[in-house]
């Protein structure tokens, strides 16, 4: 901005920064607010029927512990979806990493921290394979990660066979960490909060994150802007893989027992959490925070429905309807917004 300012022919008023009222309205209208309200309603109704749902040591712990693994996955999933891709291999990465971690405890004498880091690194590597296939082979992520979903699960199953890792093979320190609490909140939940905080910061406040939004919003425009599409795609998938790896390590800490079914199908819950939380499936919009709240809503509904006396079959159907409703709502809201903006333009 060193250029000399040419005189404007007519000086229109400079738009001022919006008032506090406008900001408050924005917060109220945000998608995340609606999801938080839905979450609170579910919590309130269930607790009213069965007070121990919230007001018991177990209830309070489960409230945070149950969603913690899904929150970590949903953050990774949201990053990928925002760039207009999807990662269906998350559950298989979780399973493979969990099993590999267990095997390292059984077969090697490596220190605990090294094993955990290697587990997460394995996740990053598996994610990078997804990313490379998507970025370089230019095949839609849906197809690529559907393929690696089976490949990664297959590797784990042929490696594990009928074998499984038992809690007795896992270091006591890790298991006790998995059940420990800090300040009344489970340690695993603290990890998920940390992931959420870092993820939200990176996606919301750094160039790399904003560029991922841009790439998801309009890939062609991103090319014209000179954004590093290939690199960002790789990073998004590496992040999703790494977080799935972290989720695998958390799985070990929480359950101790790892069979070949670990994490089976959990990628769909992660996609569901992100979508319910307002991450548009066509990329470019939504927040990491929203995806995490979506995970909380999903898991709390899962736990709450039996208490409300709803049968198992209907529980799944309710979750399914919730996902469909969220996507339809997204589409309707988006079109309404688009129409509103166009109408404003016509009126001007």
């Amino acid at each position: 901005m060193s250029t000399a300012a040419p005189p404007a022919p007519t000086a229109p008023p400079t738009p001022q920064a919006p008032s506090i009222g406008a900001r408050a309205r924005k917060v109220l209208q945000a998608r995340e607010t609606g999801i938080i309200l839905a979450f609170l309603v579910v919590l309130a109704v269930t607790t009213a029927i069965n007070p121990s749902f919230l007001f018991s040591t177990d209830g309070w712990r489960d409230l945070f512990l149950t969603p913690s693994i899904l929150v970590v996955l949903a953050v990774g999933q949201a990053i990928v979806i925002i760039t207009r891709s999807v990662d269906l291999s998350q559950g298989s990465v979780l399973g493979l990493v969990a099993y590999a971690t267990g095997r390292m405890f059984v077969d090697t004498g490596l220190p605990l921290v090294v094993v955990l880091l290697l587990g997460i690194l394995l996740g990053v590597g598996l994610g990078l394979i997804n990313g490379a296939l998507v970025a370089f082979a230019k095949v839609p992520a849906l197809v690529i990660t559907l393929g690696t979903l089976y490949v990664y699960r297959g590797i784990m199953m042929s490696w594990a066979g009928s074998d499984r890792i038992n809690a007795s093979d896992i270091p006591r320190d890790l298991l006790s960490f998995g059940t420990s609490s800090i300040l009344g909140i489970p340690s695993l939940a603290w990890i998920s909060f940390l992931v959420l905080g870092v993820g939200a910061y990176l996606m919301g406040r750094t160039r790399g994150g904003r560029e991922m939004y841009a790439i998801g919003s309009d890939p062609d425009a991103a090319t014209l802007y000179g954004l590093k599409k290939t690199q960002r795609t790789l990073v998004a998938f590496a992040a999703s893989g790494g977080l799935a790896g972290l989720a695998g390590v958390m799985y070990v800490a929480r359950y101790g027992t790892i069979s070949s079914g670990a994490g089976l199908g959990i990628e769909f819950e992660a996609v569901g959490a992100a979508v319910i939380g307002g991450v548009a499936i066509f990329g470019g919009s939504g927040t990491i925070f929203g995806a995490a709240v979506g995970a909380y809503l999903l898991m709390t509904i899962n736990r709450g429905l039996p208490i409300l006396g709803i049968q198992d079959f209907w529980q799944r159907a309710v979750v399914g309807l919730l996902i469909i409703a969220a996507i339809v709502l997204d589409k309707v809201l988006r079109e309404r917004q688009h129409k509103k903006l166009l109408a404003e333009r016509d009126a001007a």
Partner: protein
Amino acid sequence: MATAAPGTVALALRDVSKTFGQVVALRSGSLTVTAGSIHALVGENGAGKSTMVKIIAGLYRADSGSYELFGEPVDFRTTAEAKDAGVAVIYQEPTLFPDLSVTENLFMGRQPRNRFGRIDRKAMDTEARALFARLGVVIDPERPADGLSIADQQIIEIAKAISLDARVLIMDEPTAALSGVEVERLMTIARALRDEGRALVFISHRFDEVFSLCDTITVMRDGSYVSTDRIEDVTVEDVVRRLVGREVGNLYPKQDAEIGEVVLEIEGLSRAGVFHDVDLQVRRGEIVGLAGLVGAGRSEIMQAAFGVDPYDSGTVKVAGKVVPPNDPAAAIRLGLALVPEDRRKHGLVLESTLTQNITMAIRRRLSRGGLLTSGAENATARDWAARLEVKASTLDTLAGTLSGGNQQKVVLAKWLSTQPDVLIVDEPTRGIDVGTKAEVHRLLSTLAGEGLAVVMISSELPEVLGMADRVVVVHEGRITAELSRDEATPEAVMFAATNTAAATDTAATSTSAATSTHGASA
């Protein structure tokens, strides 16, 4: 950024070429721009200007030729490299991220950061507001880019380029969708940037703007360099002669046709934000040219009439029968046919053979008892391929391997085989070489002579003027003029297409500007 002394050669391209498959987009482009100058680049649509711009911007790589920036040979592989070297391009069609805010669009990829890598939103917001204040426009920097008018989107592109502090600024028809006031403002800014020693390239079809703003002019024709002159050494007539380079008559073999009753009748067709109250009647034997600027909504209107796109209100009738909305199959049955703008994407199945493409729309009619025999298909396809003189070795040739002109003939054959009453053609000769262009024109003219009603959407003014019996001009989704063949001069069409004086709310303030910028040509 330090700018070079006036007179230094900032940008130099010599004999640059670019080919896409069988289509030569740029044969031999040359351009030398000095710092502290505004250089006009003119040529008809398809002359290769936009391709050259994309090479300069690093979006395409030239097949041959040399490209130098401030004396250094460069070969940009990405737009980011070109940007870093100080080249900013304002494209003909603005490209913004619809989900993101205006501010984010301005600074994407180069947001101000604090030392922890955190984006400084406050600084970004302040700078965005300062930029808009300087440009004298009111755009809320926090609103999403979705739904902005083309003029506003263009303003954002300009603001972006200004804030980039570029040494070389290329504007590809930046004024195409701007009102008189906005054009004046842009020209003031352009002059200020020139006076700072930047090199500007200005692409425009409006000669009055070119002659009042630029100091040097380069003419291109059919993908090749024609001439470069100081602006005071040439007249508009000189430039037009070099631009066209041939007699317009040869290219547009318009034959007289008997004009019959109304076949296509569009009444009050509206779609929020896209087009409004469109009334259009087309008669048998008539070619109606739909002119307007890129993005004016012409294709959208015809796609809505055909049923591909939705519309909010209005009716479409063919020969008195109402065409139901959102139902292209019904539209085809009632006698409508649409040759789309993007023939590779929407007109053809590239992986299918010529035969399969030609019979695509009439498979039901060709099939016997639900089965389609290749004999029946081939017979029909052979007939149409011969009538339209499709040049291909066999009927089994894949559509994707044909040249642009032949592909267009295949699409035309497909639709003509449905025996339509109304043929809508969208940019029928885009990306087609001059020889085949004339063939397509002759064909359209013959068809009209046989009683077909033709609606031709075209951004090539000579094509519209040469072919149409009647020219309907669209501006920002509204019909702004209907001109008979005799009334349709280039000036009259361009004036209606830019619709400066009629802009409702700015009418009072823009009148003086409009007369100064457009009065010369009107």
